[in-house]
C-alpha cells in the first residue's frame, strides 16, 4: 500500500510540476505577484511528493518487499542493511528517482530563500527548474518506473550487482548527483535571466553559491568514484579515461570555468553573456553525462540499463533542453547589457585565459569521448580512444593553465602589471625549480615526468601560500600582526588559496604515480614477491562464507627494506546469487603512499596469482581533491559581497578615470 502511495505521489509531483512551470511563467510575463507566488509553495510541494515517493521505495527495500520488481532485481533478503539502503540508488530506476529528488530539493531551497532573490527571477527560475523536473518525472514514470509490481510476489531477490556492494557506492552517486543537479540551478537561473531579458547585478551573487556548492560536491563525487574504482576494480589504476568518467569530468571542467567567470561577473560586472552561456553548457554536459551513462550507449560497469527506449527518451530530453536553451540564448543574449571593460593583462584577463583553457580542455575530452561513438554510428567501425589521446591533448592544455594559475591569482583587477606580479612570485618559482632539480638528481635515470610534475604541484601550493602571505605580511611586519591580518582576510580569499593548493596536491599525487612499481607473480604459501623496495610474503589463504558471498582471502605480510611493516588482506569473492566474481584489493598505507595487492586465480600447482603495486604519494590525489572541495566550502561560508577593487590607472589621477 505504501508503495502504491509512493507511486501516486510521483504522479502528483508530475501534475504539480506542470503547474510550477505554467503559472509562474505567466505571472512573470503579466508581472502579477500572486501568480509568481505560486512558484515557491508548489516547488516545496513537489519536493514533499518526491521525497515521500523516495521514502516509500526505501521502505520497500528495507522490508525486502519482493512484490516490487525493482526490489526483486536489486536486492536480497540476506543483504546487509547498508546495502539495502544504498541499493535504492544502486540501480537505474532508483538512481533516476534520486536524481529528481535532488532536483526537487534544490528547487525547494531556491523557493524558501525568498528574501534574497528578486521575485521575477525566482519565478522564472523555478519555472525552468519545473520543466527539467517534468521531463525527468515523465522519463521515470514511462520508461524506468521503480514502482512496477510483480504479481505474485517473488520469493527472493536477485541481489545487487556485487561491484556496487561497497560503502563507496553509498556515497558516490549522491555526491555526484548533487553536483550534476546543482548545475541545473545555475542553468535555470541563466534561462530565467534570458527569458526576462536582463541580468541583474544580483544574478551572479545569487548564482555563485549554487555553482560553487555544486562544483565542490562534483569534485568530491569524482574523487570518491576514482578512489572506489582504485580499490574495487583491482587494477591499481585510479583514472581510466573511461567514457563514464569523462562524462563526469566534462561538467566538472565547464563548472570550474563557470565558478571563475561568475566571480568576474559578481566582482567586476563583466563576462556576463559568457557566464550565461557557460551555465547553459555546464548543465548540458551534466545531461550529456546522464545520457551517456543511462542510455546504455556505453557498456561499462555503470550502465545498468541497456534499453533503446530509455536512450531515445534521454536523447529527447537532451535535445530539448540543450537545443531550447541555446536557441533562447541566441535570441536573447544580444539584448543583454554588456558589462565592464578591462585591460588584457589583469585578473579578469587571466580568468578569461583560464576559461579558454578549461573550455578547450573540456572540448578535447568531449571529442575523445564522443568521436568513437559517432564513428561507430556512421561507419560501424569500433575504435577506442584511450589514455594516449588524452595525455597528448589534455595535458598540454592543463599544464600551461596550471603554470599561469599563481600568476593570475596575484594579478590586480581591471589592469595588472605582469612584471610586478611575476616579481612577487620569484621566490615561489625559485623554490619549486630547485626542488625539481634536487629530485631529478636523486632519481636520476628514473622517469623525468615525476620530478617535473611534482615541481609544478609544489609551485601551485607555494603560489597559493604566497597569495595569503603577501596579503598579510610585508617586510617589517611582526609575525603576530601578520597572523592577525591573515585571519582577518575574507574567507573567500582563504577558500581560493586552499582550493588552488588542493590542485597542487593532486598534481603532486598524479606526478608521483610515474614512480610506481608493479610486480606480478605466482605465490605458494610462504613464498615472497618483490616489487621495488617492498616485498610481500603470502602467509595463508582463508576460505570464508558470508551471507551473500563466498571468498578466498589471502593474507600477505609486507616488508620494506627487510623490515616487517604490517599485513594486508586481499580477497577474491563470488557473489552466489548472481554467480559474479569480484576482487577486493588489499591496501597498506605507508605515509602518503600505499602498498596495493590483489589476487588472481589459483594455479593448478596450488600457487595463487598476486599483483603487487607500490604507489608513492598516491593518497595525495584524493587528499588534493578533498582540499579543493574544502576550499570551495570555505568560500561558500563567506556570505559577504565580493569586492574586486580595480587597480587605479597610473597615467591619470584615480578619481578622474572614465573607466566604462
Amino acid at each position, binding site marked *: 500500500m505504501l508503495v502504491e502511495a509512493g507511486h501516486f505521489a510521483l*504522479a502528483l509531483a508530475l501534475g504539480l510540476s506542470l503547474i510550477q512551470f505554467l503559472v509562474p511563467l505567466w505571472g512573470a510575463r503579466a508581472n502579477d505577484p*500572486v501568480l509568481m507566488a505560486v512558484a515557491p509553495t508548489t516547488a516545496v510541494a513537489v519536493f514533499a511528493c518526491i521525497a515521500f515517493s523516495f521514502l516509500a521505495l526505501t521502505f520497500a527495500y528495507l522490508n525486502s518487499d519482493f512484490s516490487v520488481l525493482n526490489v526483486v532485481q536489486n536486492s536480497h533478503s540476506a543483504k546487509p542493511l547498508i546495502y539495502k539502503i544504498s541499493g535504492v540508488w544502486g540501480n537505474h530506476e532508483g538512481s533516476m528517482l534520486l536524481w529528481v529528488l535532488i532536483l526537487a530539493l534544490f528547487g525547494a531551497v531556491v523557493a524558501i530563500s525568498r528574501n534574497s532573490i528578486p521575485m521575477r527571477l525566482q519565478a522564472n527560475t523555478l519555472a525552468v527548474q519545473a520543466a527539467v523536473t517534468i521531463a525527468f518525472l515523465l522519463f521515470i514514470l514511462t520508461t524506468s518506473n521503480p514502482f512496477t509490481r510483480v504479481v505474485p510476489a517473488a520469493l*527472493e531477490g536477485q541481489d545487487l550487482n556485487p561491484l556496487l556492494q561497497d560503502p563507496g557506492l553509498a556515497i558516490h552517486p549522491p555526491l555526484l548527483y548533487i553536483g550534476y543537479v546543482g548545475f541545473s540551478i545555475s542553468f535555470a537561473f541563466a534561462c530565467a535571466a534570458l527569458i526576462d531579458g536582463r541580468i541583474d547585478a544580483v544574478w551572479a551573487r545569487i548564482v555563485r553559491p549554487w555553482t560553487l556548492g555544486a562544483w565542490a560536491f562534483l569534485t568530491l563525487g569524482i574523487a570518491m568514484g576514482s578512489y572506489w574504482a582504485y580499490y574495487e576494480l583491482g587494477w591499481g589504476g585510479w583514472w581510466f579515461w573511461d567514457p563514464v568518467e569523462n562524462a563526469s569530468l566534462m561538467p566538472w571542467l565547464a563548472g570550474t570555468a563557470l565558478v571563475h567567470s561568475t566571480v568576474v561577473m559578481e566582482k567586476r560586472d563583466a563576462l556576463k553573456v559568457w557566464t550565461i552561456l557557460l551555465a547553459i553548457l555546464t548543465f548540458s554536459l551534466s545531461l550529456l553525462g546522464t545520457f551517456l551513462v543511462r542510455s546504455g550507449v556505453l557498456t561499462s560497469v555503470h550502465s545498468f540499463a541497456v534499453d533503446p527506449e530509455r536512450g531515445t527518451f534521454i536523447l529527447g530530453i537532451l535535445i530539448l533542453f540543450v537545443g531550447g536553451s541555446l536557441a533562447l540564448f541566441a535570441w536573447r543574449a544580444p539584448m543583454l547589457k554588456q558589462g565592464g571593460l578591462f585591460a588584457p593583462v589583469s585578473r579578469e584577463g587571466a580568468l578569461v585565459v583560464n576559461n579558454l583553457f578549461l573550455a578547450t580542455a573540456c572540448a578535447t575530452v568531449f571529442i575523445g569521448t564522443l568521436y568513437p561513438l559517432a564513428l561507430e554510428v556512421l561507419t560501424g567501425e569500433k575504435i577506442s580512444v584511450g589514455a594516449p589521446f588524452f595525455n597528448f591533448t589534455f595535458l598540454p592544455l592543463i599544464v600551461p593553465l596550471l603554470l599561469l594559475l599563481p600568476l593570475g591569482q596575484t594579478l590586480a583587477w581591471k589592469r595588472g602589471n605582469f612584471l610586478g606580479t611575476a616579481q612577487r612570485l620569484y621566490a615561489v618559482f625559485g623554490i619549486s625549480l630547485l626542488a625539481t632539480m634536487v629530485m631529478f638528481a636523486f632519481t636520476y635515470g628514473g622517469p623525468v615526468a615525476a620530478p617535473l610534475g611534482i615541481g609544478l604541484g609544489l609551485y601551485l601550493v607555494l603560489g597559493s601560500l604566497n597569495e595569503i602571505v603577501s596579503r598579510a605580511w610585508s617586510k617589517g611586519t611582526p609575525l603576530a600582526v601578520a597572523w592577525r591580518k591573515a585571519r582577518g582576510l575574507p574567507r573567500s580569499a582563504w577558500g581560493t588559496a586552499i582550493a588552488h593548493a588542493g590542485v597542487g596536491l593532486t598534481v603532486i599525487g598524479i606526478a608521483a604515480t610515474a614512480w610506481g612499481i608493479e610486480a606480478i607473480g605466482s605465490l605458494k604459501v610462504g613464498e615472497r614477491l618483490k616489487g621495488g623496495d617492498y616485498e610481500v610474503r603470502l602467509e595463508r589463504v582463508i576460505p570464508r562464507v558470508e551471507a551473500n558471498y563466498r571468498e578466498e582471502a589471502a593474507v600477505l605480510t609486507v616488508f620494506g627494506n627487510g623490515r616487517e611493516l604490517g599485513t594486508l588482506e586481499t580477497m577474491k569473492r563470488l557473489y552466489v546469487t548472481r554467480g559474479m566474481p569480484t576482487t577486493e584489493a588489499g591496501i597498506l598505507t605507508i605515509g602518503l603512499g600505499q602498498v596495493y595487492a590483489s589476487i588472481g586465480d589459483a594455479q593448478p600447482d596450488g600457487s595463487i596469482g598476486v599483483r603487487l603495486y607500490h604507489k608513492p604519494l598516491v593518497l595525495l590525489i584524493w587528499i588534493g581533491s578533498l582540499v579543493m572541495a574544502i576550499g570551495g566550502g570555505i568560500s561558500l561560508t563567506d556570505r559577504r559581497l565580493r569586492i574586486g577593487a580595480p*587597480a587605479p590607472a597610473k597615467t591619470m589621477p*584615480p578619481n578622474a578615470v572614465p*573607466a566604462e
Partner: protein
Amino acid sequence: MVIWIILLAMTAAAVMAVLWPLSRHYAVARQADPDTQFYREQIAEIERDLARGVLLANEAEAAKAEAGRRLLRATGLQAEEAFAAVGEPALRRRRAASTLALSIIPLLALATYEIYGSPQLLSEPPGARMQPQQAGGSNLLGAVVEIEAHLAKNPQDGRGWEVIAPVYLRMGRIEDAVKAYESAIRYQAPDAVRFANYGEALVLAKDGLISAEAQTAFEQAVKLDPSAPKAQFYLARAAVQDGQTDKAKTILQDLLASSPADAPWVDAVRQELAALGAPQPEAATAGAPQIGPEAIAGMVAGLASRLEAQGGSAEEWARLMRSYAVLGQRDKASDAAKRAREALAQDAQGLKTIDTMAQELKLTDAQP
C-alpha cells in the same frame, strides 16, 4: 478504501499548495529595484572592508567610485513597472490559475497512476500479502540453506537435488536449478518427468529459447514415456521455433486428443493451438467437428446460463471470464467476474482464482 482516502488527501494537499498563495492578498507595492539595492550594499561592504584593513584606501576609493557609477546608471535605467495584483484582469488570472490547479493536478496524477500504477493491489490491507509471504520466504530460505549444506556433504544424493531444483526455479536462481536437475538426473534412474523438468529449466535459462540441449532432454523424456505431456508441449514449441508449424500442430493435437478433458495442461495446449491458428479438437473426442465463432458464442452462452442458474466451480467461472475476453466482450467478462465473486463469496480459494484470472485478463474495472 482507506488507501483511496489517503490518496484523496494527498491530492487535496497538493492542490492546496497552489491555491493557498493564490488566495492571499498582496499590497500594491513596487518591489525595490534589485540592482540599486545591490550596489548600495556593495558600497557598504567596501566601507567595512576598508575599516577592517582588507582594502587599501586608494583601492577602496576606486572600487567605491566604480560601484557609485553603476548605481547611478542602474537608477537611471529603473523602469520597473508596478506589480499588477489588483483589478479585474488580476482577478481573472487568479481564477484561471485556480482552475488550472484544480484540473491539471488531480487529472494528470490520476491518469498517470491509472496507466502505470497497480491500483488493483491497493485494495489489499497493508502487508496481507507480504507477511505470510515473508515468513514463508525466510522459512524457505532456511530450508534451502539446510538442503544446500546437506548436498555439499552428500553431492550424490539425487533425491535432494530433485527437491531443491524446483525451489531454485521459484526463487529465480535458474542456473542453479539447471545444475540441480543435472545432478538429479545423473544420480537417479532415468525418468520422463525428470528429463522434462530439466528441459524446462534449460528453456527458462535461455528466456524461452529451446536449445539443442533442451530438445535432447525432451526427446529423452518422450522416449521414456511417449505420452509425457510437458515434453510433448515443449517439442511442439521447438518445432515452431524451427518453422515447422504443421509438425507442431500435429504434436499438440495428438497431445490434446490423448489427454483427459480436465488435465491441467489442456488450456495451455489450446491456447498454443489457437496461436498457431489450428482447429482444436475436443479433448479425448477425436474427430470433433470444427467449431465456428457462432458455435463458440453459443457454448459460452450455455455455460453462462448454466452457471447463472445452478452455480459452478471457480474454474468454470474463470473459464467463462476468459471466454468472454477471447470473444472481445470485456464488459461481459467483468460482469462475469462480479457475479463469480458474489457466487463464491464464501470460498476464499475460489475468489483468489477469480482475482488471478481478472488480473490476467486485465479486467481492472472488475476489482472489488
